Each structure stands twice: as structure tokens, then as C-alpha cells.
């Protein structure tokens, strides 16, 4: 069978020298679900953006039905029946579903300069919804519908424009475990109506369940295209990472020690009376990893701010090693708390500053060896030695200590932050989504380091939206829902399904 779309020898270099797509040739057939998998930075999104005309390529040929085409902008691709749904939802929240869908291609009464034909627009949108069984209300206001529904609106926008090739960029990353099967059922229905679906992902279980064929990319190169029925998770992971990856937890039993961290009756009330954090109490012991599961925006942000001292809780207390910290300055807290934030560039580092300047943060205040003259001058000799030790111990790949932090890859950035915080030797460790945006290899490394903190008898609080991660390394899992802790579960005595339902519903209803 001939390829419907073929990409031949595609090359893309992002200035100055990030080789994102390295001579990739791949073909897609009509009416197949074809997944593009790879680690972060493998080039899968870029490859699709080249096809879609969103990013100009340096060399290569795009052919549709054997004829070369050249899209200069996404509009050209849509005109040829190719549409892409991005990771970020781009809808106007004040508009209704149908208004969003027809925006830019509205049915009009009376030719150019005519008025919007609302009745016909609604009818057209409803017909598309029925055709693909999307279970959407065309008149619903977009800001009131769920994330899963938003994604359907994005897809509908393209179907309304009669697109026959759909590119989806990691669509499941914003969905809860329960919403994913429904999306997959809809995608399969689309395929059965001869739509080609190009599905970008790095979640192998999903890809295996959904796809007909899978193309694996690594470091900008295509590694292979295989039929989903002829491969398995281990083989795909090996192709993706270039070596064997272990999916089972390396967590070994470890006795827990004394209570290190305790939150009691912690509440944060917004000015309009809404409780963002509602009477939260829990403790973390030495040598224990406590995971906090929950859909983002259910109080995790307020919890982190209260612990770190960015915002004072409305009521309640936090103690570390028995001493109250709610009245302490951030610097005082940092003697007790190591912190890995979820957003490296915003909270965890200064991107334009040198690697050295980033490595010594907090240490420069807490450790006398980094300053001289009673803290007036920094001791750069010790700072340089420290940076080198840190980079070596946490295998940070860097050109030089003086290179800007932003020149590091995401994984190396996170290793440096993790190492810096690890070396603070505090009793308590707060980690907010420490593996977000990292590739499989780096995630494995970070998990290993978190487990070694547990071995070193430090108390670890791990906030994560990734349930698999929590089950891999956490001893206990607390579930947050609407500012409250609705479940306190021992990892061995629960499962992803149960935690997922607590996350969504806040309780288990038979």
C-alpha cells in the first residue's frame, strides 16, 4: 500500500545548533493511527510541526499522494486536509463550543460583509458532533466544560474544516486516567471513518493500546517504524532510550524513623471565602517518601507556598523536627527544608546566570566556607570546587562552570537543582513534580536519587500528578481533592485505579 503522506529526508536545526530533526524519512497511510514516540527532545513534535507548516524546515520533501507540497503556514496544511491539535488548549473561554468551532470559517448570510448565520452554524456543528458521536453540547460555554471536552472542541474545530489527517500532540497529558479510554474510543471511530491520526506521545502503554503503527524517534533520528501488534513496551522503551529501562520499582523495605515534618489543620482561605487548603494535617517521617497525588490546582500550590514561606496560611501550623516554622523567614526555613520546584526556570534557577551561580544558591548563605570577610565577599575558589563536585556527583553534563544555566538540557538542569538541594543536608525534602518535562533516562535517575535520600533517612514529600511515579517510589500516597486530603493510603495496599478515583471524585462511591 502506498503512503498517503510521506516525509523524505527531513532536516531541522533550531538556531544556533540544536539538531531537532536529523534526516528523517517516514510514511503515513490513509486511515491509520500512527504514533510517534520518543523522549522529550527526540524531535517528534518538531517533525509534526514541519509537516504542518508551523516550523520551516531546512531540507527535505513532503509528499501527499506522491505529489510534493510545501506548506508555508498552517493554513496551507488545513486547506490540504491536515490539522494539528497542540498541547496547550487554544480556545476563547467566553465563547460557546459552536462559536469556537466556526471561528474563522463562519457560515455567513448575504455574502461578504454579511451577518453570522448562527442557526446554520449551530446546525453544522451539531451535525459534526453527531457524526463522530462526540457527546458535546454546542451551546455550552467553553470556560465551563472539562479539559477532556476542551480537547474534543479542538478536534472538532479541525473536523469542521474537513480535515482528514489529525495530528495530536500529547493529548493525554492533560487528562485523568478515567478520561483517556473515552478519547481513545473516539479516535478509533475517527480512524474507522478513514481519518489518519498522527499521535505524539511518550506514554508507551497508551501508544500500544491505541496505534496501528508506531514510529520511534531518538535524538532527532528515526529509529524504526513497527506495527503495534508486533512489539511490546520493553522493546519500544529500549529503542527510545537506547538501552534497557526497568519499569518496576527499585524501592526496598526501609524502616521509617522519627516524625520530621508535620502539618496540623493547615488552611488557606481566599478573600472570597473559598478554602483553597482545607484543614490539612499529615506528617512525614525520616526515611519515608510520602506522595501527594491529585489533579493540579487542588491545593498543591497553596501547600507548597505555605511550607516554603511564600504565603502565610490562614490558620494551622507546620513543624519540622518539632519546631514551628510558620513564623520563620525563608532563609531560616531553608536550614531545614530542601526544595525542588515544579518550574525550573521560574523558581529553581536563574536561566541567564552561570551554572556556578546557580549551584551555590542557598549554600552561599548557609555554609561559612562560601564566604569570607564575615560574609561580605564570596569565596569563589570554594564555589568553583563545589560546582565541580556537584556536577560530578550528579553527573551534570556541562561545557563549563561559567556557561549560562539555560545552555544545559532539561535533564541536566534538573540534576543540578536536585544536587544543589540534596547537598544542603536538611532533614526534610519537598519536591514539587520533580520529573515534569524530563525524558525517561533522567526520570529514572531522579527517582534513584529520591530513593537514596530515603536511604539517607531524610523525610521526603513528593507532589506529583503522575500516578505511575508515585507508585514507583512513594511509601504512602495522600490524595488531595479540592484543598482537602481525602485519602491516606499505603502504596502496597492500593492501586492506580483507586487513587485515580479519589483524585477525581474525592471519595469512593461504591
Amino acid at each position, binding site marked *: 500500500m502506498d503512503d498517503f503522506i510521506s516525509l523524505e*529526508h527531513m*532536516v*531541522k*536545526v*533550531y*538556531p*544556533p*545548533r*540544536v*539538531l531537532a530533526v*536529523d*534526516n528523517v524519512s517516514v510514511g503515513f497511510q490513509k486511515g491509520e493511527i500512527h504514533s510517534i514516540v520518543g523522549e522529550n527532545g527526540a524531535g517528534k513534535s518538531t517533525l509534526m510541526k514541519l509537516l504542518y507548516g508551523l516550523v520551516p524546515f*531546512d*531540507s*527535505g520533501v513532503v509528499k501527499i499522494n506522491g505529489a510534493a507540497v510545501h506548506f508555508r503556514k498552517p493554513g496551507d496544511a488545513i486547506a490540504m486536509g491536515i490539522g494539528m491539535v497542540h498541547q496547550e488548549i487554544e480556545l476563547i473561554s467566553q465563547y460557546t463550543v459552536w462559536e469556537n468551532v466556526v471561528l474563522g470559517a463562519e457560515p455567513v448570510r448575504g455574502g461578504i460583509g454579511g451577518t453570522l448565520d448562527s442557526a446554520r452554524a449551530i446546525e453544522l456543528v451539531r451535525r459534526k458532533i453527531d457524526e463522530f458521536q462526540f457527546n458535546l453540547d454546542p451551546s455550552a460555554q467553553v470556560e465551563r466544560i472539562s479539559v477532556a471536552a476542551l480537547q474534543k472542541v479542538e478536534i472538532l474545530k479541525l473536523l469542521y474544516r474537513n480535515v482528514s489527517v489529525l495530528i495530536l500532540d500529547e493529548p493525554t497529558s492533560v487528562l485523568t486516567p478515567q478520561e483517556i479510554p473515552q478519547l481513545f474510543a473516539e479516535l478509533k471511530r475517527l480512524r474507522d471513518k478513514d481519518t489518519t491520526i498522527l499521535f505524539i506521545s511518550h506514554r508507551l502503554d497508551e501508544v500500544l493500546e491505541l496505534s496501528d503503527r508506531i514510529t520511534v524517534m531518538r535524538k532527532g533520528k528515526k529509529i524504526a517504524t513497527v506495527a503495534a501488534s508486533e512489539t511490546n513496551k520493553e522493546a519500544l522503551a529500549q529503542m527510545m532510550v537506547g538501552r534497557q529501562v526497568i519499569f518496576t520499582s527499585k524501592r526496598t523495605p526501609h524502616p521509617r524513623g522519627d516524625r520530621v515534618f508535620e502539618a496540623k489543620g493547615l488552611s488557606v482561605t481566599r478573600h472570597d471565602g473559598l478554602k483553597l487548603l482545607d484543614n490539612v494535617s499529615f506528617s512525614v517521617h525520616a526515611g519515608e517518601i510520602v506522595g501527594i497525588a491529585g489533579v493540579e490546582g487542588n491545593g498543591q500550590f497553596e501547600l507548597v507556598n505555605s511550607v*516554603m514561606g*511564600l504565603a502565610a496560611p490562614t490558620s494551622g501550623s507546620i513543624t519540622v523536627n518539632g519546631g514551628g516554622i510558620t513564623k520563620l523567614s*525563608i*532563609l531560616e526555613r*531553608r536550614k531545614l527544608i530542601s*526544595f525542588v*520546584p515544579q518550574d525550573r*526556570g*521560574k*523558581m*529553581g*534557577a*536563574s*536561566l*541567564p*546566570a552561570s551554572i556556578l*551561580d546557580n549551584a551555590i*544558591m*542557598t549554600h*552561599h*548563605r*548557609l555554609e561559612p566556607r562560601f*564566604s569570607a570577610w564575615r*560574609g*561580605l*565577599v*564570596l569565596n*569563589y575558589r570554594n564555589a568553583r570546587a563545589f560546582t565541580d563536585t556537584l556536577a560530578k556527583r550528579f553527573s551534570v553534563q556541562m561545557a563549563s562552570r561559567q556557561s549560562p544555566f539555560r545552555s544545559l538540557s532539561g535533564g541536566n538542569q534538573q540534576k543540578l537543582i536536585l544536587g544543589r538541594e540534596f547537598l544542603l543536608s536538611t532533614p526534610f525534602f519537598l519536591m514539587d513534580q520533580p520529573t515534569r518535562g524530563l525524558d525517561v533516562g533522567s526520570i529514572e535517575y531522579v527517582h534513584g536519587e529520591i530513593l537514596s535520600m530515603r536511604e539517607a533517612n531524610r523525610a521526603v514529600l513528593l507532589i506529583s500528578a503522575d500516578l505511575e511515579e508515585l507508585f514507583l517510589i512513594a511509601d504512602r500516597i495522600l490524595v488531595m481533592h479540592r484543598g482537602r486530603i481525602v485519602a491516606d493510603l499505603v502504596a502496597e495496599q492500593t492501586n492506580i485505579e483507586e487513587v485515580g478515583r479519589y483524585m477525581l471524585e474525592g471519595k469512593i462511591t461504591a
Partner: protein
Amino acid sequence: MTRRILSGVLGVVIALVVGAIIMLIEGYEPLATYGALAQFSLGGIGPLTTTLKNSVPLVLTGLSAAIAFASGPVNLGQPGQLVFGALAATLGGLYISLPPVLEIPLLLLLAIAGGALWSGLAGLMKQAFGMSEFIVTLMLNMIADFFTAWVIAYPLMDRKAFSPMTPPIARSGWMPDIGPLNSSVLLMLAAVVVMWFVFQRWRAGYEWRITGQNSLFARLGGCDVRGNFMAVMLVTGALAGLAGGLVVMGGPHRFLKGLGANYAWDGIMIAIMANNGLVETLIYGVFVAAIQTGALGMELITNVPSEIAQVLQAVLVLVIVATREYAAVVFDRLAARRQARERAA
């Protein structure tokens, strides 16, 4: 590093070419004009030392702006801080008379205190009421401007003069000449060295830099963000105040009407040209002083009006900033294209 020098030199060259085109359109001889400009600013000991002396207020206010911008606070109050420093030094010089070894340091300290007082006031408004230092420093410039105008026109006016000015300060407070060079230049250089050391080597300087780049990260890292804000406001105000003091003590030795003129605004422009680099501020400060100094002489021997220097200065700022930003993009694109060609082959 080499890239930075390259784009800086390129920017200056392009700016001079643009300036030449403007002169050609106006019917002037660009080469002769530039020749006269260079001759009266750099050609010989006399012009050179004059240029250096004229660069003192430019470099010091530039330093003030560069440190403020690189550390976060948007201190645009250099004009006000400069005149307050000048006023404080003048007051000291009018009412206190000591031997030079005591008088000069005293007047310099008064100038520093005067500038710091004015910037500290803006800093306090931010800490106490959450008012943006951006608008407060701008407004305080106006107050400082009219306040000093009143002081020299009423209580301290020299009755013998034709225009508003104070009587001259005590002779012992004049900045001495060392050979042909005024000693205020040495103080300026010392200030650059000290500030470089503070900014690059002190713990406080480290925290200022990081706070300027990402204040949330600095705050979470345990830096004293509030304290540092106040310290930066005081230090940068002090630098502008020092500039004002040196203008009085090194030059007319009294507070003349319009003394602040454009020094401080030029200083802010210099900081922008220098991309807030301290050494770059020194280089561009001297460069701008050369143009301004040369322009006065140029007017004498050519028929080009000295206002062309202001046009040239504006072109310089725009072109240098544009070149710096665009050169980075072009360099990156060239590198990308080279690599893409290799991979496709």
C-alpha cells in the same frame, strides 16, 4: 566575549555610517566633521583630559543605572539624585571650611549622602506603600529639579551673578588637577573598580545579580530580597549623588542653574547601550563624552552645528542596541544553516 566586542564595534561603525549619511543629506562633509570631532576630543593631552573629565558624570550615572537595572530596581531617579548630591556638596562647601584633605572627603560624603537620601526616599515609598519605584523616582526628579532651582534662586543665590547660581564653594573643596588631569577622573575610575568588585565578588552583589534575573528564585534561595532592594536603591543613588558632587567640585565650583542638564539621562542611555555591563558602561561613557566634547570644537572649525552630536548620540544608542540583538540572531541562524547542510548531505 569576542562576539560581544564584535557586535559592539559593528554597532559603532554602522552608527557612524548612518550619521555620515545624515550629514551628507544636510550638505556637510562627513569625513571632515568626524575628523574635527576626533581632533577636539581625542587629539592630544588637552582634548583627551577634557573628554575624560566630561565623562565623569556620564559614567557614574551610567554605573548607577546599570547596577540598578541589572539588580531589579528600576531606578530612573539619577537626575534628581545627581542634583541632590550636587546640592549637598555645595552646601558643605559654602558653610564648612577645612583643609583640603578633610574638606574634599567631607564634601564627597555629603554628595553621596545627598543622592542616597533621594533614592532612599523612593525605596522607602516602595517598602512602605508598595509604590513602584519606577514612577516614584521619576516624580522625585521633578521635585528635586524645582527644589534646587528654588534654592539657588532664593536662599543661596549669589547676588553678584546675573543668572541663578550659588556663590563659589570653599577653595579647599575644589577637586585638584594632577598635571593636566582633573582628579575627579581618578575617583570615577576607582568607583568603577569598587562597584565591579561589589557586583561580581561580594555576596550582596551575587544576590543583586540573581534577584535582577529571577527574584522569585533568589527569594526561595534565602536571599534577603527586601534588604537588597533597599541596598541597591541606596548604592545607585549614592553613585548619582557622587556624580553631582564631582560636577560641582571639579568644574564650576558652584551650583549653577541647569547643572544637572542631561548628564543623568545620558547615563541611563549609556547603561542601555552597555546592556548593564559595568566595564561596558565605562567604555561607552567615555565614548559619548568624546562625541559631546568634540562637538563643541567641531562647531568652531566647521559649519556643522554641535546639535549634530545629539543626533549622532541618539543614532548610536538605537543602532548599538539593534546590532547587539540582531547579531545574536544572525550568528545563531548561520550556525544552524551550516549544520543543516551537513546533515542533509
